[in-house]
């Protein structure tokens, strides 16, 4: 076995272990020098990125991969329940992991200058790495309790990072709100895992998915899991923590928090599509379970879009407006996923047209995960740059920044067009998919989506006009452009946005379609571990 095959074989645990090792080493390395520490972190994340590329290539060509911790076959001899923890990697996992590593590397690059003047940088980098590790863990794992453990790591590290500005009382408040909500959500999830364990005596997702019967307990478990993960991913009724957390943490933390939030969304997808995947079209009920789940998810998505857009109109704080836009974007993803579920349920007797429309909606929703991370992320990075240069985030005290901050202005313009789904940018590609497919399922949904998208454009044009254009404010006369590493990070994000916007088919064919197929293929996921069932 040559070294390349060996690395391919062991890449799943290494993707988690390398950033974790880096996190444990960072406090020791930062005793030497700040620059060496930053370089060390960046290089180790680069290595992780390489491992992800290797694993991704392998999974996308050879199909689902399983890694058993401690070695041996997935199933012990004579058993049909796995005992050891397993990683199970399919196209959806690869898609999410790639998003996370892009966010992580850009975040470290951006923090290099952005955090230069702050104290406690060693702990900051340690916690960022731990957050990245936990996000990877949540995405790679095929074991429910392991998922819960990584979810808790993610909660604790995010909470500590949100409270990074300890001298500001608002950020402490936001961190406390976040940890209360997320730990209650995590406890719901733990209770649900306990119920699943009691029924099926297994913690492996594939085993549970194979055995699940949609009994009374399973319904309770579904509600608890969806509620817990919706708390984590900031869906509409539970979005309050997200606004505070996004708008009051440092910009680079917000950027990586988007990845952690999306990992919560990924957990929700795994629950609906993998664990309950075989029960979506269960015929033992008056309605298909998939239809009911789909309607609820769609309704919550539409509610998120409404709340996000209309509250953003009323705000005057720059970062808070972007946070509301983030809620709206999460609503778009849930709208698309709910549309797929509805389409699946409607197609069941003899209406394959609906399933095709639903599949397009699913692809659009998944593609929108990537685009949302980049668009909202870029806007937050710009907000961070504005804050870095002026120490202000209120619209009323900012103005005329375009004269001194040319590049930042251009990046904001790109982010603005991308978020509101204007043609040359990536947001257009995914939103167009969502509009087209939801129109076939219900025209009203598609009209709501389009109108809200246009209103989002109006919101950000107002922001653009008031911050970057307009008369110069005297106190901001000698504002300087931000340092090079921040500009490089923003340029990188903007470059990716424009690239995806110009060639969306490359991403859709190579990443999004395998992800959507992986989600739809519940039987394949189960049979990889349990053999031909």
């Amino acid at each position: 076995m040559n070294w390349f095959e060996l690395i391919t074989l062991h890449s799943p645990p290494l993707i988690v272990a390398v950033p974790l090792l880096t996190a444990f080493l960072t406090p020791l390395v930062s005793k030497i020098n700040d620059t060496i520490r930053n370089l060390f972190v960046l290089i180790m994340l680069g290595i992780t990125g390489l491992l992800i590329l290797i694993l991704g290539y392998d999974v996308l060509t050879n199909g689902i991969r399983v890694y058993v911790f401690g070695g041996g076959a997935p199933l012990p001899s004579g058993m049909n329940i796995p005992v050891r923890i397993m990683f199970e990697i399919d196209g959806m996992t690869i898609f999410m992991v790639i998003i996370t590593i892009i966010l992580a590397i850009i975040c470290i690059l951006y923090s290099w200058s952005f955090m230069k003047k702050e104290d406690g940088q060693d702990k900051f980098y340690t916690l960022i790495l731990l957050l990245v590790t936990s996000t990877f863990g949540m995405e790679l794992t095929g074991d429910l309790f392991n998922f819960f453990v990584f979810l808790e790591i993610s909660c604790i590290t995010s909470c500590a990072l949100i409270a990074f500005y300890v001298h500001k009382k608002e950020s402490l408040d936001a961190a406390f709100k976040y940890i209360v909500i997320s730990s209650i959500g995590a406890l719901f999830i733990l209770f649900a895992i306990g119920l699943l364990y009691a029924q099926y005596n297994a913690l492996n997702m594939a085993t549970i998915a194979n055995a699940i019967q949609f009994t009374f307990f399973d319904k309770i478990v579904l509600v608890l899991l969806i509620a817990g993960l919706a708390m984590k991913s900031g869906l509409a009724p539970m979005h309050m923590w997200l606004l505070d957390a996004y708008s009051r943490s440092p910009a680079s933390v917000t950027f990586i928090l988007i990845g952690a939030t999306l990992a919560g969304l990924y957990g929700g997808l795994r629950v609906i599509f993998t664990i309950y995947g075989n029960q979506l079209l269960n015929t033992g009920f008056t309605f298909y379970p998939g239809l009911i789940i789909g309607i609820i998810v769609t309704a919550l998505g539409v509610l998120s879009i409404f709340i996000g857009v209309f509250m953003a109109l009323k705000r005057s704080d720059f970062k808070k407006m972007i946070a509301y836009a983030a809620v709206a974007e999460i609503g778009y993803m849930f709208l698309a996923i709910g549309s797929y579920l509805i389409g699946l349920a409607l197609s069941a007797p003899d209406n394959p047209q609906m399933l095709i429309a639903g599949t397009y909606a699913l692809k659009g929703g998944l593609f929108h995960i990537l685009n949302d991370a980049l668009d909202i992320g870029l806007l937050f990075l710009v907000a961070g740059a504005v804050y870095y240069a002026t120490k202000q985030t209120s619209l009323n005290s900012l103005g005329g920044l375009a004269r001194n901050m040319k590049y930042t202005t251009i990046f904001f313009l790109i982010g603005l067009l991308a978020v509101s789904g204007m043609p040359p940018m990536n947001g257009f590609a995914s939103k167009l998919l969502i509009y087209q497919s939801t129109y076939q399922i219900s025209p009203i949904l598609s009209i709501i989506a389009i109108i809200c998208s246009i209103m989002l454009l109006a919101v950000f044009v107002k922001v653009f006009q008031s911050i970057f254009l307009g008369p110069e404010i005297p106190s901001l006369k000698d504002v300087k452009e931000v340092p090079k590493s921040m500009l490089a990070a923003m340029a990188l994000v903007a470059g990716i946005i424009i690239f995806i916007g110009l060639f969306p088919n490359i991403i859709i064919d190579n990443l999004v379609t395998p992800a959507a197929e992986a989600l739809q293929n519940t039987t394949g996921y189960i049979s990889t571990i349990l053999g031909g069932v």
Partner: protein
Amino acid sequence: MSQMSKIVRTQSNIIFPFITIFGLYVIAHGHLTPGGGFQGGAVVASGCIMLLVAYSSKWVLEKININRLSVFECFGALGFIGTAFFGLIFGGWFFNNFLVRNGILFNVVPEFGSTLSDFNTAGVLPLMNFAVGIKVIAGLFVIVLVMGLASSAKEWKQ
């Protein structure tokens, strides 16, 4: 907070070694009896915290450096993940129990059924127990020490 009375200090001096020994016993026999790295570490850490309460956190800070303690914790974590990596290098899989049956240390495999406490069993488990024990002792102690320092700093301000 200030120091407590002489009686409390003397008593905690006397009890402290016993608590520590018991905690270390729980850590070392984790693979044979109920307990393990976390439980034993928590016992030892609570002994340390008893000293912290009896003498003030300021007194403890003169003896121990917080930075050094948190480095200690890093080493515990590195030991744990290092054992896992050794499993990858020597055993072929991450988290492989590579010492059992073919190592020099801890390689005995007991017969099925009731056995006496043979310390020389269980492969890498005792090593992991020790690593986690160190980590938990340092971690819990650092948390309480930092919080105690912060609250006493506030008292000085007033």
